[in-house]
């Protein structure tokens, strides 16, 4: 909290300085989202009563970005999410909640065209992974079961030197607990043909050190029709366990995690296929996971150990996604405005899964209506078999501004 207040004060001071510059302007963009969710509770979940659950909820979300720019270059950004939520059926009671989340709030300064400085709450670029960045020790982790969730940044000072052959990013991250404060650096280069390579390092007193390698390759970029094929790898080793242990089995040292993935757009039909696999050395085996759930039911393992680790309890996961941006792209009055999405996250550790299917429509200009269904399933001692909501249907109506 203290670090956020400090960041806000600094950003306001820098924005004030920048406002004195010529041709500066504020621009607001984002979307207003009216949302209704209907969920079926998983009666065998160990999280009943521990995590809030509502069968029917409705609310409004405003995702906004207020950018402060001079000509076409940003000088600062305020990225926020304002949410108003109504639980319509919660044991007969109506609960209303309001929240404002500051996702990013930063100011940019640059010295010439080489050195760039960003100060404030910001997301620091780290991993190549789409659904999850297992090597990222800095940013709040992505939740692979909530791909549309807005991601918060961290309070940091970042310096970047950007050149064509080599870019270097160095940063210091400020957390409320001084011991968690850390420093890191990332060196990236596109010098190997069709490849982007990055080496990163991070150190903090409490989290110790992390060394990471990220690589993205477009192996067939020279071949028309196949040039959308891209492969990536993200991996790291680190010194101290990131999660509280619920298993007596010692983890392999040094700890490591990696993700590998690929995507391609099918020619003509424009379907985007994405595949990712990740492995966590800290992840539990199927036996340990079953034992942990039995421990939760017996009251010997705190439920918080299991709840705060979405899609990171097991050791191996596979994610498959198929997206059809629009059914047709030839001016058809109906099918040009309908898109489809299907994805499935499978825990290879315990064979449970979290599947998503959705339809997106864009019949009205600058708006979108989405219908999404999620389904979590598996056995009683599996990760997704213990999801609190077994089936959820979400209807979103978004207006972009």
């Amino acid at each position: 909290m203290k670090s956020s207040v400090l960041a806000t004060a600094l950003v306001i001071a820098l924005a004030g300085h920048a406002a004195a510059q010529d041709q500066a302007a504020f621009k607001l963009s984002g979307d207003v989202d009216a949302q209704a969710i209907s969920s079926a509770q998983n009666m065998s979940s160990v999280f009943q009563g521990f995590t809030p659950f509502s069968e029917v909820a409705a609310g409004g979300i405003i995702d906004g970005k207020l950018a402060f720019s001079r000509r076409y270059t940003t000088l600062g950004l305020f990225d926020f999410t304002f949410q108003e939520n109504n639980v319509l059926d919660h044991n007969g009671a109506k609960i209303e909640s309001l929240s404002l989340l500051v996702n990013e709030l930063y100011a940019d300064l640059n010295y010439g065209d080489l050195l760039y400085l960003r100060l404030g709450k910001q997301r620091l670029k780290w991993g190549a992974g789409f659904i999850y960045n297992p090597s990222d020790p800095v940013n709040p982790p992505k939740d692979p079961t909530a791909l549309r969730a807005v991601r918060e940044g961290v309070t940091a000072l970042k310096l970047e030197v950007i050149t064509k052959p080599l870019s270097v990013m160095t940063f210091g991250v400020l957390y409320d607990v001084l011991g968690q404060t850390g420093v890191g650096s990332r060196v990236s280069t596109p010098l190997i043909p069709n490849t982007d390579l990055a080496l990163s390092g991070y150190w903090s007193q409490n989290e110790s050190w992390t060394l990471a390698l990220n690589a993205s390759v477009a192996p067939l970029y020279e071949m028309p029709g196949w040039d959308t094929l891209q492969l990536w790898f993200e991996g790291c080793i680190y010194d101290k366990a990131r999660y509280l242990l619920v298993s007596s089995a010692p983890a392999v040292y040094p700890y490591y995690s990696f993700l590998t993935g690929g995507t391609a757009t099918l020619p003509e039909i424009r379907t985007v296929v994405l595949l990712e696999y990740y492995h966590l050395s800290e992840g539990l085996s199927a036996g340990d996971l079953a034992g942990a759930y039995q421990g939760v039911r017996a009251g010997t393992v705190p439920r918080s150990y299991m709840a705060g680790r979405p899609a990171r309890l097991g050791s191996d996961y596979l994610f498959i996604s198929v997206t059809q941006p629009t059914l047709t792209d030839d001016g058809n009055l109906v099918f040009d405005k309908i898109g489809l999405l299907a994805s499935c996250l499978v825990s290879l550790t315990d064979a449970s899964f979290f599947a998503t299917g959705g339809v997106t429509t864009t019949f009205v200009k600058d708006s979108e209506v989405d219908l999404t269904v999620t389904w979590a399933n598996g056995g009683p001692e599996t990760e997704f078999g213990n999801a609190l909501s077994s089936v959820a249907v979400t209807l979103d109506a978004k207006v972009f501004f």
Partner: protein
Amino acid sequence: MKRLAFVLIAVAAALPLAAQSFPEGDVVAYIDKVDAVTLPVNSKGRMAVVDTFSSGDDRASDGFFVRKDNRVVWVATAPASQKNFALLRDQDVFWQRFAATNKVVKTSATANSRGGETSNLDLTRFNTNLDYAVKYLGEDDVDGKACYRFELRAKNRKLAYSLVQLWVEKSTRIPVKKAFFAVSEKVLKYYTVTKAEMKDGRIAEMEMQYVDALKPQDTSRLRIFDITPLSSVPEQFFTREYLESGRLYPYEF
């Protein structure tokens, strides 16, 4: 006798070439001048594209671009859902930035990331000699305008069209028509310049109409305006890191 026959054949073969020798000298230098009339090497401008389909549906998007020779970055300013979407061309490598997440991924020259008849290459191709080998074909007439006609063959297979034909108006050096061919040498689409305003010997505003040769009712109207020469453009604008940092913002200048 055989030698005489060979000389006669060689002379006969050379006749059409002699007839098509370019009247203004060096073809490559001339094409550079044509490009300079269209868009200065270091420049910025705005672009508005409207796709019209035979169904009666249409789709519009606006953006601005910054050019440094064969490197171009294009940022969408409309529609609202696509604000912040960006397309980067760094020589023969193309990148796109997703509007919502700032994530940058490689994309293809042939893809039409914004939809319609205009490919990524159409939005970012401004240096003809770097992309194509140019050959003069002769004189021609387009809508009553006296033109030179050229054949452009792609130097790199990644480029969208293996063969292009270009008509340049003699008096203004404006490329008034371009036809794009498939590998089979069948016309895929063409554009004609429907409006051009000149200022200081170069185009200040231009409007082109792209037509799908296979479905002529499907068209795209591309308008480039507010074209402004820049004294210098930072190299960093054309790197993935800079695009991903979100610094290049869809400010409507």
